[in-house]
Every structure is written in structure tokens, then in C-alpha cells.
């Protein structure tokens, strides 16, 4: 993977000028590259990773992992059914997987009832959905390589040879 992507994936707030200095490139060149990635859909979005455990907002949310068994459609496979499912705003992630079920969804809702309603009223009745298993998430430890813990202090002594 291009070094620019690697750097931005770790910290999206690093500026093109800084990337240029880190990689010995011209900053105009880095800017151009980034624009190309954005236009080409390689870089889709820049966002913060939030540890929701520490956010005590009134509008908390619950998440569920949902296994979905599908009946594939002739000529279209799973793609068309998947699209109908992932287009619901409640679905935050959707993966086609191998194994005992077909789609793995991550669904978000205000509370357990909202998610249950989504499953029973929208997802399960769909024509090509053969069955669902819902797992409510209890605690998040690590997400996308980030361990969800408060920052640890540097344990090294501040100065040494």
C-alpha cells in the first residue's frame, strides 16, 4: 500500500505538508495524490474513532451482530438482496461471509427494542431472508486495530542514555 495511505489510515489529521516531510516528497505531489485517492474512492471519508463507553450521552445506542441466511437470486447471487438490506440506515456494516450463514450485519439502534423491531419487522420478513440470529453486543474491547482503553501513560523514565 502507498505510504501516504498507510500514514493517513493511522492518523487522518496529519497534514499533506507533514506527510511530504516524512516521506521526502514534495507537498504538492502529496496533495495531488490525496486528491486522486479521494476522487477515485480509495479514501472515502475521514472520521474520529470514538470510545462510546466514555460518552455518557442521553441518546446512547446499542449494537447487534446479526447473522443472516439468504436465498440467492438467479443470476444476481447475493448482491441484490444484500443491497436491499444494507440500504437500511440501521445497518452500519454488512459483509458477505463464508460458513454457516451468508451475511454478517452490524446494526445500530437507540435501544434493544429498536433493534428487535428492525429485525422482526424489516429484516426477517424479507422475501429472500431464510433466517436470522441476533447477537447483542455487550462490550467493545478493540475495533479496527484500536484498543478501546483510556490512554496509558508513558511508562519509560523521561530521560536515559
Amino acid at each position: 500500500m502507498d505510504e501516504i495511505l498507510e500514514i493517513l489510515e493511522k492518523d487522518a489529521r496529519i497534514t499533506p505538508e507533514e506527510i511530504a516531510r516524512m516521506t521526502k516528497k514534495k507537498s504538492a505531489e502529496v496533495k495531488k495524490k490525496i486528491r486522486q485517492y479521494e476522487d477515485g474512492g480509495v479514501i472515502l471519508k475521514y472520521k474520529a474513532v470514538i470510545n462510546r463507553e466514555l460518552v455518557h450521552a442521553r441518546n446512547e445506542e446499542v449494537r447487534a451482530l446479526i447473522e443472516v441466511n439468504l436465498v440467492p437470486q438467479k443470476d444476481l447471487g447475493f448482491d441484490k438482496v444484500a443491497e436491499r438490506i444494507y440500504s437500511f440506515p440501521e445497518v452500519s456494516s454488512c459483509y458477505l461471509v463464508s460458513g454457516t450463514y451468508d451475511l454478517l450485519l452490524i446494526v445500530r439502534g437507540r435501544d434493544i427494542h429498536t433493534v428487535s423491531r428492525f429485525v422482526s419487522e424489516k429484516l426477517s420478513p424479507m422475501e429472500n431472508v431464510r433466517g436470522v440470529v441476533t447477537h447483542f453486543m455487550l462490550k467493545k474491547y478493540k475495533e479496527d486495530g484500536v484498543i478501546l482503553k483510556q490512554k496509558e501513560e508513558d511508562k519509560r523514565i523521561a530521560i536515559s542514555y
Partner: protein
Amino acid sequence: MKDYISKTVEKMKPSGIRAFFDLVLGMKDVISLGVGEPDFVTPWEIREAGITSLEQGFTSYTSNKGLLKLRLAIHNYLKNTFGISYSADDEILVTVGVSEGVDLALRAIMNPGDKILVPMPCYVSYGPMTELAGGIPVYIDTRRDDFKLTPQNLKKYIDPKVKGIIFNYPANPTGVSYTRKELEQLKKVLIGHKILCITDEIYCDLTYDFTHTAFPSLPGAKEYTLYLNGFSKSFAMTGWRVGYACGPRDLIAAMTKIHQYTIMCVPITSQMAACEGLHSGRQSVENMKREYRRRREFVVSQLNRIGLKCHMPHGAFYAFPSVRKTGMNGLEFAQKLLAEQKVAVVPGTAFGDEYTDNIRISYATAFEKLKEALLRMEAFVSKHRK
């Protein structure tokens, strides 16, 4: 109590900047660019191996030389990476960090009056360890050659009393390293005079612009080399204290004699963890190296931009800029920078009395902190520029 202290130890100079170090340690909220160890924690697979070994009850002594499986892993690593073959049986000794290796080597070879060449500036222990072993350190100033030892400079210091040389590359505190060709030239001079080469190659995995050449891998060099390395820097394992010495059988046997009486063996937990490092930790090493390299480019260009002249270090995680432009010496600079901007750096004099113009900056610090520290330094320099 003073009467009880040995003359040799009493003569050893305490570090002149101890007071400054204490100042840093006593202060809160300092961004420290003064740390001589990686800012990564030991990769999990290595820590996990340490934990597992404890669970399984590996809590005993090991062979004096170190666990055979570790010596074999070291043998394989050196062979595959640098093309040198040391026998796990009698040419490899596992030590408590490179520090013990330095001590053992010097004690094993010194007779009173023998001289050891020490290119400067250098890691703090070489001179005092030489003296403690009864030898005389002969310091080679390298300022004129951008802190690089050159054959011409080296030749000036050689006389019949010179028994060995001890040098470190990539180097702490300068980041200087040597290409194969440069090492060849040094080797010719050194071996031509039958000088024992003690090479401390602890930063070998952190070489950025060319491939690291292990000194004993040069043709004809192996029998004149004592090769020192360890796990601290490559695997971010400083606190585990595992290093190793490789060299000619007789020398390793002599060092093992001292080691068996003083240390007995390196803690088994650390040895087991180190094994895992060599077996599976290479990817982590590569990732760390990439990150350091980016920081290096950033730090060095930034230092030069704000007027602190700095050569491009080829390895390790240090930059050694000159602060001369500010009219201050390294110690003053470090003290004022700490007081005014709460950024800690190490004065160059920590690594040799002559290096009053320089400071050592360690970029083993998270990028955000590094950035902030350099901004503060920029403000500081523009305020004080003469």
C-alpha cells in the same frame, strides 16, 4: 565510608549531567526527547511467550551460556540476515543486554596499560568500563568528519599498546552508520594492526538508507571481531535485558568464565521471550522501522529548517544537531529549553566532554508529541537566535 571505596571507582567520573537528568525527572508534563529506548512496548507475541513460560513453570537457571534454543535462534538469525555463522555451542554467549557484553569483553582482554580506541561521541559506558577493566581508553574525536570514523583519522591513534577498538553503529548518540565499503576500509586498517574489533550493533535493525553490514561478515574480519547485539532496540525489549556476544571460541570461553561467576545466567523468562522475538517478531521490527524512518525525515528536516544544523542520521532513533547558532552550549540550551518550553533533550556532553555544541534528540516518541516538541523548539530558537 569513603575510605572503603576503591581508588579506581573513586576516580571514575560521575556523569556531569546527572543534575540535569534529575531536574527532568522531577518535572511534570514534560515532552521528553531524551529517552534512549523505543516508545513501542514489546510486541504482544513476545510478551505472551514470557507469560506462557511462567505459567508452564520455567523459573529455573539456564546453562551459563544461555538456553540452547535461544543460541540456535541467534545462530540462524545471524546466518540468514548477515551471512555470518557462529556456532551455537561455543561461539555465542547470552548476556544481560549489550552492557554486560561490553563489560565482559573488556575484562576478558585487558592487561594493565592496554589501550582501547573509542570513537567519540559514544555511548556512555565504553570509557568507564575500559578503565574499570584496567585499560586506558583512547578517545578519537570525529567532529571533523560529521561524527564518522575515517581510516585516516583512525591511523593517527594506533600504536603498539592499542589492543582493541570498541564502536557502535548505527550509533548512539549521532545516528551515524557505515556502508559496507566504509567498513571495509576501516577493517583493513584495524586488522592490519591486529586490533580486536568490538562492535556494538544493537541498532542494526534500525538502518534506513542502506543495508546494515555486520562487521564480522567482512572477509577475514570474523576472527578479529567480537560482535555484540541484543533484543532491546529491535524488539523494544529494553527492560528484559537480553543481549548476546559472538566471537572467537577462546574469547567467548574467557567471557563465559567471568559471566558464570558474576551473572550465572540471564533470567529464563527473558530468554524464552527473546526466542519468540526471533521466531515471530520480524514483522513487528519492520513496522517499527518504517515508523522511525518517517519520524527521522520529519525531525531532521524540521531541525535544519529552524536553524539547528543536523546531518542525516543513517540509523538508530537519534538526531545530533548543533545548537551553536543560538549562542548557547548544549547544556545551557537543554536547561533553558526545559525551563521555558518543557521539552527535554540530552546535552551532547553526556557523550563526551568536547561535544558542547550539540544536543541529542531521540525520535522514539509518538508523532504528535514530536510535532509539538519541535514547534516549541522553533519558538525557543527564534526567541534566542543571535
